[in-house]
């Protein structure tokens, strides 16, 4: 049986094709803002090509992510919490909790057997999100790779406000004007993103931190991951396919539905 999962996020769309419980193809593209439907189709075709599978052979397609309803060829949609859970049961079966750190959402869920124990999502605030870091990278004229390679700021390094991205940006720009380097400012910004993301981790009432899996696009940002480890006070496992976890979860769900 072949199923597909599509994770239509705020910044990127990820496709995973699953055949009899194994990933056989994947693709990634920009989610395209207003042109999401076309972006989904484009990534979909690329995913099929990569897997060497014809569209007609795919038994079921399930979409997830904030743009899940924009994937017009999906048979069903599931929410991000459920796809994260399904993915983590598959990618890292002994995980007791999962953190999905993406462009538009930080989601933390504890795992209770095959179910979600407790789930927390960021407040309506962009300060802990990947989108904020991407935006600041553009402002500071740094590449995402450069952002990822930053070290942790020292005790006397410049700091910016962690309560509000607008204030954070203003402070970041005034730091630049005062002579701080873009790298120093970027490190300060990354730090506050990790503070805010760890605040979501703290929102969980009944902790289950024995083994925490970190998935989502921000797993690619090493500086962020390191800072998050410090602020959340825990270590993470970053499983293979971490960036594609949402799509993996959706594909697994599709397979369950077909059974």
């Amino acid at each position: 049986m072949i199923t597909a999962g599509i994770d239509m996020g705020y910044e990127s769309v990820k496709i995973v094709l699953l055949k009899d419980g194994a990933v056989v193809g994947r693709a990634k593209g920009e989610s395209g803002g207003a042109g999401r439907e076309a972006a989904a189709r484009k990534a979909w075709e690329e995913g099929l090509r990569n897997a060497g599978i014809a569209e007609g052979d795919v038994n079921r397609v399930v979409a997830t992510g904030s743009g899940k309803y924009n994937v017009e060829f999906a048979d069903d949609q599931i929410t991000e919490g459920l796809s994260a859970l399904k993915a983590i049961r598959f990618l890292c079966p002994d995980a007791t909790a999962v953190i999905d750190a993406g462009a538009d959402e930080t989601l933390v869920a504890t795992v209770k057997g095959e179910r979600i124990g407790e789930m927390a999502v960021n407040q309506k605030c962009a300060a802990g999100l990947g989108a904020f870091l991407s935006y600041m990278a553009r402002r500071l004229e740094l590449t995402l790779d450069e952002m990822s390679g930053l070290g942790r700021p020292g005790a006397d390094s410049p700091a910016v406000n962690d309560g509000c991205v607008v204030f954070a940006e203003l402070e970041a720009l005034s730091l630049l004007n005062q002579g701080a380097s873009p790298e120093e400012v970027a490190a300060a910004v990354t730090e506050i993103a990790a503070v805010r993301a760890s605040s979501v981790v703290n929102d969980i009432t009944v902790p289950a931190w024995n083994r925490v899996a970190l998935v989502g696009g921000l797993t690619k940002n090493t500086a962020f991951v390191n800072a998050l480890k410090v602020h959340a006070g825990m270590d993470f496992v970053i499983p293979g396919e971490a960036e594609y976890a949402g799509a993996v979860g959706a594909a697994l769900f599709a397979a369950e539905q077909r059974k």
Partner: protein
Amino acid sequence: MDKFKELVENRHEYARAWKRRTGGKVLGYFETYMPEEIVYAAGVLPVRILARHEPDNLSDKWIYASCYPVKDMVNQLLKGRYDYVDGLVNVEGCQWMFNAFEVAVNNRKDLFSHYLFLPDYTDAASSKDVLRSELDVYKKKIEEWTGKTVTDEALDHAIGVYNTNRRLLRRICELRRADRSVILGSEMMNIAFASQVMDKAEINAVLEKFIPELEDREPYKDRIRLMLIGSETHDARLEELVESLGGSVVIDELDNGTSYYWNDVNLQKDRLMALSLRYLGRPHNPVKDNNWRRRPQHIFELSEDYHIDGAIIAKQIYCHLHGTDNYAVWKILRERNIPFHFFERDTTLPLEETELRLEAFMNMLRPGLVRLAGWHKALEI
């Protein structure tokens, strides 16, 4: 760094040392309406919980959409910065402060805690009686907690020490009425903060020694004279910024600024009634200025006495009380043609943006000053 700023920065070390030295208890408090005299009379050190801006990933779990000073008070408490306090007390005041108190108490059930009701309706005939009754309850609880009886003599002594502190602060504040003052706003604010975190007798001794030195200082050159109105803040960065631009906050109307030391306890045989009348009669913040309006008039009187050139109204984001009071405050300032600049802030100030707006405001004031001045103003700045 000036002496008082240093005292405030070292307040945790100070309190720990005080405990070691005296073997006494420390009581953290949230609202400046806390009747400290009763606590002090029992040999306890009252310490104001102050916000600092530290990366905060703890408070969101407990509270939502609070003003940032309160959020950071929670952050500070949860991070253990106040691990030396033996008790916490709150007086009915703003809701965020109440929330911070409640979260702190729920996290530290081992601490002594008390919630004191102080009417929002401060000028009803029955207000003084209900507060007196509450002070009596409070006194008994403090006695029970410390095992010490708060005698009339101890209360008289405490009231004396506190009145002295208020008088010393007002004496320094009065120096700011001079055309060329020997003290700037940031230093004055730090003196007020230091008074809220130190043993009053000790800070009084520091101030007694400091005042003659102060009076001998060379006055600062002319500066644009500003008044600071609005939500309380827990550091003097705004005042420092004003100073860096050639101005000075010559008077404030902050809950933890002049309102904290503006009136004395007038002694009477019934000490608790004397305290009740003092706390009900102090310059009120918006939550307590709740019946016949006194706050706008008080602001106006201060502006006259300290002959200000303009006012800054800085409101903390999510401060609902100052948010609604602005209407009355703006109205009176406009009626009297006092220029003012309003902005919202949080615990930290976005430096450049704030600098820009304050500079623009002060530049707006400058031509008027030249015109008005003639005598000595502004041009030397």
